[in-house]
């Protein structure tokens, strides 16, 4: 087990370096000179340009800039935005909101997805199963932003049950609708995964044994079918946490939430490269750590993996 953990943790390093290098190259190698753009039409004096270039290490070769940026990540000093705020401060403000939103979405999709998936899987081929299956396809087919608008109109405006937008420092109630919207697509995948997994478990030998030794239906379902079916679902949910945080850009835009997605989109449109790279790095880190945690959990649950 110790060997497996060591190997798996070491694998994270090239992935992190590769992903950040790719993002850094994409953002910083784009055409155009930020220093010239800063000066506007009149332009800055030659000496000032040189000073700015030296201050932000823009006169260094690309790889040196990237290494300086890595050093900034390690020392938690990511520089300042155009408006002079510390990037770390921007992240510290945006991250908790998005994290809360993603966790709520994860909870919603886990509870509803596993619940419906279990019911559908137990009654394979029935009316409930078929209608849930078609409904899940429909949920996948409708884009996130359309689901968001429809919920805003129906639940927010016409019924008036939930606030339409979240705004600054949102509470759980105002995040309920955005979290549902964010969870929608993944909910359909969790449902389908649980359903298939439950069906496979139902025809497995250990379930037949459990039935044969006289366990009640509820005991067979709860102890044997559900527990064994949840392994792939847990894997999906762990990997989905990263995807939810990165995918919150659209949802946060619709509901006016000032999280990572909203800040990131603003930074991209304003061309604030430092902020863009820093925020995407945080998202990549969340994704890598979530996947690592799931893999280690998986290895702890299933001995076949660590000896493979």
């Amino acid at each position: 087990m110790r060997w497996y953990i060591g190997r798996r943790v070491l694998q994270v390093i090239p992935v992190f370096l590769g992903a950040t290098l790719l993002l850094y190259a994409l953002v910083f190698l784009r055409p155009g000179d930020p220093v010239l753009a800063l000066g506007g039409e009149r332009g800055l004096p030659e000496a000032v340009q040189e000073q700015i270039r030296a201050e932000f290490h823009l006169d260094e070769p690309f790889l040196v800039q990237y290494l300086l940026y890595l050093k900034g990540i390690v020392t938690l000093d990511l520089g300042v935005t155009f408006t002079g705020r510390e990037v770390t401060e921007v992240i510290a403000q945006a991250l908790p909101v998005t994290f809360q939103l993603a966790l709520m979405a994860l909870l919603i999709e886990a509870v509803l997805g596993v619940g419906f998936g279990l019911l559908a899987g137990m009654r394979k081929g029935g009316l409930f199963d078929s209608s849930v299956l078609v409904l899940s396809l429909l949920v996948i087919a409708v884009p996130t932003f359309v689901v968001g608008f429809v919920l805003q109109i129906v639940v927010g405006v016409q019924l008036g049950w939930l606030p339409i937008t979240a705004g600054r420092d949102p509470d759980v109630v105002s995040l309920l609708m955005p979290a549902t919207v964010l969870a929608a697509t993944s909910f359909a995948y969790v449902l389908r995964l649980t359903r298939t997994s439950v069906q496979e478990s139902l025809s497995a030998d250990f379930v037949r044994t459990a039935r044969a030794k006289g366990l009640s239906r509820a005991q067979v379902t709860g102890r044997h079918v559900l527990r064994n079916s949840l392994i792939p679902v847990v894997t999906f949910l762990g990997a989905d946490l990263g995807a939810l945080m990165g995918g919150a850009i659209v949802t946060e835009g619709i509901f006016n939430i000032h999280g990572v997605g909203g800040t990131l989109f603003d930074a991209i449109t304003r061309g604030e490269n430092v902020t863009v790279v820093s925020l995407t790095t945080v998202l990549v880190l969340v994704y890598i750590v979530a996947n690592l945690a799931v893999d280690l959990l998986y290895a702890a649950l299933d001995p076949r993996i660590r000896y493979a």
Partner: protein
Amino acid sequence: MPDALPTTGATRALRTAPRPGQEHVAQPLTEDLGAVDAVRTQDAPAGFWREAWRGMRRRPLFWVSGALIVLVLLVAAFPGLFTSIDPRTCALSDALDPARAGHVFGFDRQGCDIFSRTMHGARASLTVGVLTTLLVTVVGTVAGALAGYLGGWADTLLARVTDIFFAIPLVLAAIVIMSLASTRTALTVALVLASFGWPPIARIARGTVMSVKNDEFVTAARSLGMGRAGILVRHVLPNSAAPIIVYATVALGTFIVAEATLSFLGIGLPPSVVSWGGDISQAQGAIRTDPEILLYPAGALALTVLGFIMMGDVVRDALDPKARTR
């Protein structure tokens, strides 16, 4: 279940033309034995793809999704068949007017005919969806098949590269690249989506190629003196196609959604191109007063995506032997 086995070049040659001494060994069924040592010889194995086609034809969902896809393709190719109104000729005096004769869906905020715009919007979505899927399938299959077939350093390299691309969310990467792009056409959107959308196909192709390359018919082909490249192209790839096709069908739908998301954010196709994502973004401004404007482009988009992912479901059931034995 022998008829679910994949048919290869080598086995097909044996089946169709038995040489002397290689005829079927099973005896024809002469009496009702009800035992397993009798085989109905007239029931020749139909082959993997024909068997899958037989299975699909029986599903109502196949016909529903097939009809949807054909209709959408027709609308995308010849929008003029369905409407004679120019989607870009708009009069502000018509803005937000309800439906009237000749304009069944009414008008949007700019006074454009919504029905015409919905019909003409199909082309942008489908072009991007199909182009991206083609690119992703080719790149992913080549990379995954080479890694799985060669193994060793090629495999390690691909595993690390796909890990890197997996760590960056598709929409996020697309937003970053599209905000840098100077020209924005269907091709650039497809290229951007494809450059971050190929790793899943590569992983699938690698997995199936790795399991197929150890099958008996590959050993048979090698013992007949066939080269490594020949075996990969003639035997391994055709027998690895099923999972790739299944993924590609579903992915087509998700790429259409991704394109609409980018256009909705204003960094996909430019406003001069009529697209569903752009129209949804336009309708967003009048959502409190005239929510029904949103319904038409969003509905068309959802129906199109639904068609492709339903088809993906049917195709998976038909091609996945595990699902078939159940």
